[in-house]
């Protein structure tokens, strides 16, 4: 029991957690013949709740129910592990620690609490968070997938669409970090 708890709470090096992450690909293929992705569930949920009248949302969402259950499982993992266990993170690189220090952002846990507090939503970063959320929804559907469906699943299948999308993700991310976040903090 203690070993299990240690495994859950102590940080893992990337060469252990990365392959564990990649294992989701054969696991899903072999158990359910599915290619997974998280962002497709956005479309299915909109279709299920009839949030829009566009033709894009008119199809049999019931065939894709599993994708929404998959996302529900992700939600439950956050609920369980981030509320009821004390997961330690490994140290950031020295460069990153100095960066956050210079920007006055305390490093604790998985998110900077202050930036993500509900009152901070009325600040400039709060607005950018909402705008970022909009881009995540819009961009992932436009690109036909997100980091899970394209970068992990798609690249595992050596798909050219996924390579193009993943290069796009990266360019967009580097741009946002150097040209927006750096000026904000």
């Amino acid at each position: 029991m203690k070993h299990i708890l240690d495994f859950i709470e102590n940080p893992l090096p990337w060469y252990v957690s990365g392959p564990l992450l990649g294992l989701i690909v054969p696991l899903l293929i072999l158990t359910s013949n599915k290619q997974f992705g998280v962002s497709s569930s956005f479309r299915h949920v909109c279709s299920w709740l009839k949030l829009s009248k566009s033709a894009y949302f008119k199809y049999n969402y019931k065939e894709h129910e599993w994708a929404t259950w998959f996302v529900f499982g992700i939600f439950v993992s956050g609920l369980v592990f981030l509320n009821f266990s004390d997961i330690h993170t490994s140290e950031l690189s020295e460069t990153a620690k100095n960066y956050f220090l210079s920007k006055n952002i305390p490093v604790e846990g998985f998110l900077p609490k202050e930036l993500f507090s509900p009152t901070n939503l009325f600040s400039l970063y709060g607005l950018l968070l909402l705008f970022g959320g909009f881009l995540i929804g819009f961009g992932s559907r436009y690109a036909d997938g997100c980091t899970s469906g394209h970068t992990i699943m798609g690249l595992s299948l050596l798909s050219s669409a996924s390579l193009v999308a993943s290069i796009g993700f990266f360019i967009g991310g580097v741009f946002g970090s150097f040209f927006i976040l750096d000026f904000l903090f």
Partner: protein
Amino acid sequence: MGFYFGFVLIKSEAISWYRIVEMFHFQSFHLFGVIGSAVITGIVSVLIIKSVHLTTIKDEPIDLKPKPLLIRANFFGGLLFGLGWSLVGACTAPLFIHLGAGNLSILLVLIFVYIGTITYGAIKNKLPH
């Protein structure tokens, strides 16, 4: 399966806001290592599955058709998604993990994710694909 995926995302620290900011600033190898080794594991497993013609546990033949290439959509959509990823410091699955942890701001971010999805559905035909 989702539960397993969520757990390893937490353990790999891919859900960490700090790690995302660090990665996009090229300040550490950590997430590059995580993503790189995850993809290599995926590629090798798919190659094995294909070469020994494995079937699913229910004995169905395996269907591995990758997504269609829509070069402009994949790229421009990718750029927008990447920008959103860096601004929020979390991509899609980590948002649900933070929501599970009970973060209310994330709930609002997720509402905007759905607004983005609906907007795409509404203007899909006007975009280059």
